[in-house]
């Protein structure tokens, strides 16, 4: 049986956050809450990326200061790849929110509600 160490606690935070978000996205009946849950799930994953790319100690941002030796820089800066993934996912998340918001507003226009229980023209 493996025991989680202190350095792994952020993972557990991510796991719980992701589970709550997936639950909410699947079972909440309010469309807006569903959307927020999905967006928060993206954030949970972003958090996972960031904590995996973080360097303990005197870490610096991944921008090489003028005159620094690249090998020194590589040994103290944080992971740029994780940041890259997060930056990309944030932009994509914005597009998701724009799309879903537009759809939710239109649903509200048509049905006068955003509760999935009350929107049942289609049988599924």
């Amino acid at each position, binding site marked *: 049986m493996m025991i989680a160490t202190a350095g792994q606690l952020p993972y557990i935070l991510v796991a719980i956050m*992701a589970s709550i978000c997936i639950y909410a996205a699947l079972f909440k009946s309010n469309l807006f809450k*569903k959307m927020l849950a*999905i967006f928060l*799930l993206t954030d949970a*994953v972003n958090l*996972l990326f960031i904590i995996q790319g973080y360097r303990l100690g005197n870490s610096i941002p991944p921008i090489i200061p003028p005159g620094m030796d690249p090998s020194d820089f590589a040994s103290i800066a944080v992971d740029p*790849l*994780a940041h890259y993934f997060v930056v990309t996912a944030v932009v*994509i998340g914005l597009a*998701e929110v724009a799309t879903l918001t537009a759809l939710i507003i239109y649903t509200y226009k048509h049905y006068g509600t955003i509760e999935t229980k009350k929107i049942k023209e289609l049988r599924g």
Partner: protein
Amino acid sequence: MNPLLVQAPILAMLLTLLGSFLCVLLGMFAGRRSVELLSGVLTAATILLSSLALINVYLLDGPYVYFMGGWPPPVGIPYVIDRFSAPLSLVVSVIFFATMVYSVRYLEKDRDVKWYYSLRFLMQTGMYGLLFTGDMFHIFVMLELMGLSAILLVPFRKEVKASVEAGIKYGIYDILAITIYYLSTAMIFGMFGSMTIAEISAKLGGYVSPFSGGIFADPSALPVIVALIVWSFAIGAAIVPQHFWLPDAHSMAPSSISAILSGLLVQVNIAVLARILFDGFAAGSLPGSAVGLQLLVILGIASSVVGAAFMLVQSDIKRLIAYSTITNLGLITIGLGVGTPLGVSAAYLHIINHAFVKASLFMIAGVFIHATGSREIGALRGISKALPGTSLLYTLGTLAAIGFPPLSMFWSKLLLLLSVLSAGGVYPYLVLPMVVSIVFESIAQIRLLAIIYSGEKRAVNCRPSLPVILSIGIMISIIVVTGLMPNLLFEFGRLAAEDLLNVSGYVDLVLKSLNYTAP
């Protein structure tokens, strides 16, 4: 190597990219005819470029890797143009072209077609990207691109209440699926320190990359990651029990879009899943990731039987065809889950055949709905006497869908049965649910056909115009011709399965084909 042949698939992607915003520009200044002209020219060009790529991969240079930005993996994003992805990309191009020709007249009464064509182009780009890419994170981006454009195209006729409902339903579940996939990419990043599909399987086999090192976490977590990936793609590909959005979305979208959604989008999802499972996680040989294949078989059985059973009680023609998609996806996933070369090639052929059949059925359903002004199956009574040519095409399409020999889908269904029987273990017993689903599906389809062929001649609102018939005719003739020459089709299936299942070959191709010295 001829640079045109090497660049052809990428050029096709970039052309569709250009098309996506040039459409909007033209739509604002030059009117819809020019938008349609531009879309027509560009989609025709993509057919040409995809066939060039196919010729190159099959006859000239063989499979190759395109290094985006010139960076070898895992530094950059590799695009793998091999015998698994190249034929599928041609199928994508052909169906997009046919639906393009179809939509010119089909959408005559709709406003704002510039958004329609623009989103179509982006969906096409997303499909090419998904088929070719060899990078887990790029798959996430491309899934978003394809998914969001599809989500927006479902409620394209936004005045229709139900289509917006279908759109939001599809939107929520598809984006949730993609986000779950995003979670699994983060876990893969933590475990392997790299996003390249080929490096995952290589590292599982003990490879230490000069760029990204070895494995950083205990591989006992692998089944969880695989299950997450399968789950996310199962939502995206509407495999039971996450199928409920598909009949709504596919029936409420404009028929030209239903054809793409049902014929291509879900199949592309399955193809990507196959790529990840077989080449990424070496599911054929690694016990830790074989759980993915077992999941696929179980879900596939449920899908095929449930989808077929629901087909029997539908009263809406497009919902019936949509449930048939769920059934056939179940059969495809069974074939993949069996995991033998025969099973994978059968599933691959079923993907291709089903794409053409389902796209043409939806296109004809669109003609019927326009002609009768109703989506109810009962309203189709007597339509065969009013529209004999279209009904004949529909008959051929339906016969292909129920696996009538010698039309194309018969061969893939035969191979699927064969693969299940030859797999050993408990797999031969799967024949029973498969046959049940095939029989159910044929009953439902034949019932629909019977209604089309019965009753008095009825009046119709409009007759299909020549381009519409022509685009459907292209698809149906492909079905008939490939059915009569299954040799060619089988060859594609065999080689695709060979490329997909040859994990070490794939790894060598991706990681070693560029000549460089690591820093």
